[in-house]
């Protein structure tokens, strides 16, 4: 559940969203300790009394399966040291050296509480990280009742608050609904409210909608969108149509080593469309994870991650080349623990 403001059309106040991305995205759904990558829980098993439909998951997760196939652009050198201090607490140190952006140090801590709701999920989860300039990203996720989960997230840039949002999600038997309140400011009476609803129509089809209402002193507006997701036995196709444009993704699992993703994005605001094709190759025997992507903007990129096994060390190499503008960017990162 990354920052909602990044997904809605009006530009959020402040430009700190990109900086927050590594912090906010690192703890989506599953939160087990210490270094298990968060598994995306597709929903509770359809074991309820007689109901053949299972919970469809959250609204944001629908496009995520395809997005995870694509490589991330890496730039500069990054060293990440993760240390699990106990079953519940984990600490991470990140040193970033880069030519284009600022170099810095970031300290992060994750606490997972004692209330266990499933084999891989425990609550409450508190994640925070602070930069060497004093910028803080913090999230608290808690399961209030068996069906209601809530999250509070705060992001600051040095001492100024850039994002503060609170959301509440209700998971029913075959539907999920969520309400998010972003940057509410009582004094200026401004803020953003996002409402999501996703309903399972059949075991394979889920339909949903999103309504974003934003208000600033002097202007207000609402942007609705509709979403449909179809799951086949080895593919997932998702389509989102809305006031902000169209977004379609297709994810296909070719075999247990190769996963493919195709993404089409069209924006009403900038009147531009883009198509990207990505693939992920997983070779556990060679301890290798390779992601590559080709774009309609003539951008070619790849990320290679290799576990250097006797040590708990993992090396990532990334390269992105924009053929049209002839610009190249490469980076590598080393993760310990």
């Amino acid at each position, binding site marked *: 559940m990354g920052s909602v403001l990044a997904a809605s059309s009006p530009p959020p106040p402040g430009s700190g969203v990109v900086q927050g991305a590594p912090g906010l995205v690192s703890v989506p759904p599953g939160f087990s300790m210490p270094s298990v990558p968060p598994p995306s829980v597709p929903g509770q098993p359809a074991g309820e009394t007689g109901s053949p439909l299972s919970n469809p998951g959250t609204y944001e997760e629908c496009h995520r399966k395809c997005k995870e196939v694509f490589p991330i652009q890496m730039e500069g050198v990054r060293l990440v040291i993760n240390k699990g201090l106990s079953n519940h607490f984990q600490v991470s140190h990140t040193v970033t050296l880069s030519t284009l952006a600022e170099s810095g140090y970031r300290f992060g801590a994750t606490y997972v509480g004692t209330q266990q709701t499933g084999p891989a999920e425990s609550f409450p989860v508190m994640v925070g990280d602070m930069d060497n300039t004093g910028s803080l990203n913090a999230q608290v996720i808690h399961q209030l009742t068996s069906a209601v989960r809530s999250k509070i997230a705060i992001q600051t840039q040095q001492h100024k608050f850039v994002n503060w949002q609170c959301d509440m999600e209700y998971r029913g038997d075959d539907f999920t609904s969520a309400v998010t309140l972003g940057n509410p400011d009582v004094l200026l009476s401004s803020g953003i409210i996002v409402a999501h609803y996703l309903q399972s129509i059949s075991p394979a089809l889920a339909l949903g909608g999103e309504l974003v209402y934003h208000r600033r002193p002097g202007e207000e507006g609402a942007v609705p969108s509709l979403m449909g997701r179809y799951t086949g036995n080895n593919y997932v196709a998702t389509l989102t149509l809305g006031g902000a444009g169209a977004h379609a993704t297709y994810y296909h699992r070719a075999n247990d080593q190769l996963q493919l993703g195709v993404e089409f994005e069209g924006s009403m605001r900038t009147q531009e469309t883009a198509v990207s094709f990505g693939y992920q190759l997983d070779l556990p025997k060679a301890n290798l994870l*390779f992601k590559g992507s080709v774009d309609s903007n003539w951008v070619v990129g790849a990320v290679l991650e290799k576990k250097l096994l006797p040590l708990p060390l993992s090396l990532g190499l990334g*390269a992105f*080349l924009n053929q049209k503008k002839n610009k190249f960017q490469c980076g590598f990162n080393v993760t310990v623990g």
Partner: protein
Amino acid sequence: MAGIEELSPAVGPVDTRPPEGEIDEDEDEELDETFIERLWGLTEMFPDTLRSAAEVTVSSSVTMAKKLYSFSRAALWVGTTSFMILVLPVVFETERLQLEQQQLQQQRQILLGPNAGMSGGMPGMMPPAPVKM
């Protein structure tokens, strides 16, 4: 009567016509063309449509050849760099993995004899298990 004069080339006054030798020299000096120009002049015997068709054909094929050349240069560069980024690391790693596996197999063969050349090598592993249990 001296009315009608016979008109013949020889009648006219000699000094109105340039002398024979001068005619040839002047013509040679005025029409001093290079070899190429004289060859080009030969093409004037073809009809105009044929000449314009030939000119269009030749100029468009020269343009297309130039475009093909620059396109193949760009395509070669784009293809090579994209292959390098998208495919080469995986090829390196899979080759390395194969070599390692081959080496392991060879080592196992040397160690346990030619029967254990299988990738599992199970028969050689059996004896220690009952001792552990």
